[in-house]
């Protein structure tokens, strides 16, 4: 057991499956998972989409864990299963030791209000509400008073550098600023776990980098557990403590970013990290040349 494991696990996923029905005609229940023949038939069934296949992983408290994969690899479905925005077909999700998959609807609502906050690629802000009201949104949902919510929201808005924009509507903000609102909305909840679904993918490279730096700075002081989905390897390398690479619904490799770049488990991962390796090699050669010269 490693040192990280012994201090407990913030997120634990065991044998998680999600099977969609393309035509919405079928609903695949957990029973198909116990029938290997049926499962194999579903692999070739036009109607069934096996978005997440038998995924098991864990995330330590305070860790930034990256899920990386191309679009369609099941990473967005996986992150949605963690708070049951998508209902898993089978498997277990535990967050801070609590079994999310066993919660009844009211427990689930309480869990979403206190334990996890999510940041979305498409922001998901309320267009008819101001920045302030959007940041207050989650607090108001769980019944905090307007005054208390506003006070907390001011703090969060200041943290993401949006002071002075409180009364603006999302439509009058740039993409980067909208995502800052999205981040403020998640921070204000004070939940120990942050789920981020490609939060910076829609932004241009400079803004993306700026927000990555911002997130790292915030993480320095907050020490939250971050579950971060991206298709961008350099983002994964910058932010991640550990990462998992997904392909066709399966996790093909888990490790530190360095492990994965230096020791890819198969061709798929190798191709994914190739660019990054080339750059590293080039930098190393240059450094060696410099040292030699």
């Amino acid at each position, binding site marked *: 057991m490693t040192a990280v494991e012994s201090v407990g696990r913030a997120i634990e996923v065991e044998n998680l499956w999600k099977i969609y029905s393309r035509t919405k005609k079928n609903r695949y229940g957990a029973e198909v998972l116990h029938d290997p023949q049926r499962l194999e038939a579903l692999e070739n069934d036009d109607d069934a989409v096996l978005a997440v296949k038998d995924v098991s992983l864990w995330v330590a408290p305070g860790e930034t864990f990256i899920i990386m994969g191309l679009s369609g690899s099941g990473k967005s479905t996986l992150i949605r299963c963690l*708070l049951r*925005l998508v209902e898993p077909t089978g498997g277990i999700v535990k967050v801070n030791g609590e079994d999310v998959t066993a919660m009844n609807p009211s427990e689930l*609502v*309480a*869990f*979403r*209000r*206190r334990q*996890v*906050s*999510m940041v*979305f690629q*498409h*922001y*998901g*802000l*309320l*267009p*008819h509400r101001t920045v302030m009201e959007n940041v207050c*949104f*989650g607090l*108001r*949902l*769980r019944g905090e008073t307007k005054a208390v919510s506003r006070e907390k929201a001011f703090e969060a808005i200041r943290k993401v550098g949006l002071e002075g924009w409180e009364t603006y*509507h999302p*439509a*009058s903000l740039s993409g980067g600023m909208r995502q800052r609102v999205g981040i403020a*909305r998640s921070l204000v*909840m004070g939940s120990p776990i942050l*789920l981020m679904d490609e939060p910076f993918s829609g932004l241009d490279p400079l803004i993306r980098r700026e927000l990555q730096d911002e997130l790292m700075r915030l993480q320095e002081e907050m020490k939250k557990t971050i579950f971060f989905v991206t298709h961008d390897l350099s983002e994964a390398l910058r932010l991640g403590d550990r990462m998992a690479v997904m392909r066709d619904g399966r996790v093909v490799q888990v490790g530190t970013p360095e492990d994965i770049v230096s020791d890819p488990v198969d061709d798929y991962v190798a191709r994914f990290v190739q660019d990054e390796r080339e750059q590293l090699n080039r930098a190393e050669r240059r450094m060696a040349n410099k040292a030699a010269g």
Partner: protein
Amino acid sequence: MFPESLQYHIAPGVNHFVDWLVVSFAPFFDSVSAGILKVLLGINDFLDMLPWWVIIGFVALTVWGTTKKIFPTVVLALLPFLIGIFGLWGLAMETLSVVCTAVILALFFGIPLGVLMAEISGAALVLKPVLDAMQTMPSFVYLIPAMMLFGLGKVPAVLATLIYALPPVIRLTALGLRQVPSAVEEAAVAYGATRWQLLRDVRIPLAMPSILAGVNQTTMMALAMVVVASMIGARGLGQEVLLSINRIDVGRGFEAGVSVVVMAIVIDRITQGVAKKWEPPKG
């Protein structure tokens, strides 16, 4: 020709059914009628109590408040003058009270039904053909039984208007709710919104422009029914139109017709202006 041997009539059955309704449910229909009449008379008394310049002032203020433009404000405030000049102000207020009552009832039933239609997939299946029937069934077909059940006068007129004016608000409420972007709904659910909170704080506010377009359509539909409603004894501008048709007094009919149009334009602009206020700000 369609073979005669295959003919079968449901007419006697419908007749019996209506007769049975009239006999067995008379107290029920009487109390419904009394309730509607109470609302109607309340609105009518209120409108009668207001001096004409208050109403024109209200129109001007609302238009100014929603558009902040001088020209439409002045034009829309001057238009109702025409009704007064033609000597039709009192009748117009009676028409307005029928329209208001029908619209209030339409919103009272229509918005919840629209929510139901969007939330429960089976509800749409049942409601849609009913709405189609309400909009296309020639109005005289239900005017006669409405008269038998509720007597002559304004109450059957309100109900006939209601039947005609209800579908748009139901349809547009359901449409608006279905068009709420799934990304916004998903975020609200992720932050722990219950189904009711999702509806109240996210879906209905985002559907509001569409719902108000439905209110606008419903009001227009209600105005379009006033002439028909006058045939079952509802006083108002429709009665004036009916009278002048009977007397082939084209000029008098024109005055009443213009008054209906003026009311339609003013109400349309006011409700549209209010609807605009609800649209999420852009840029």
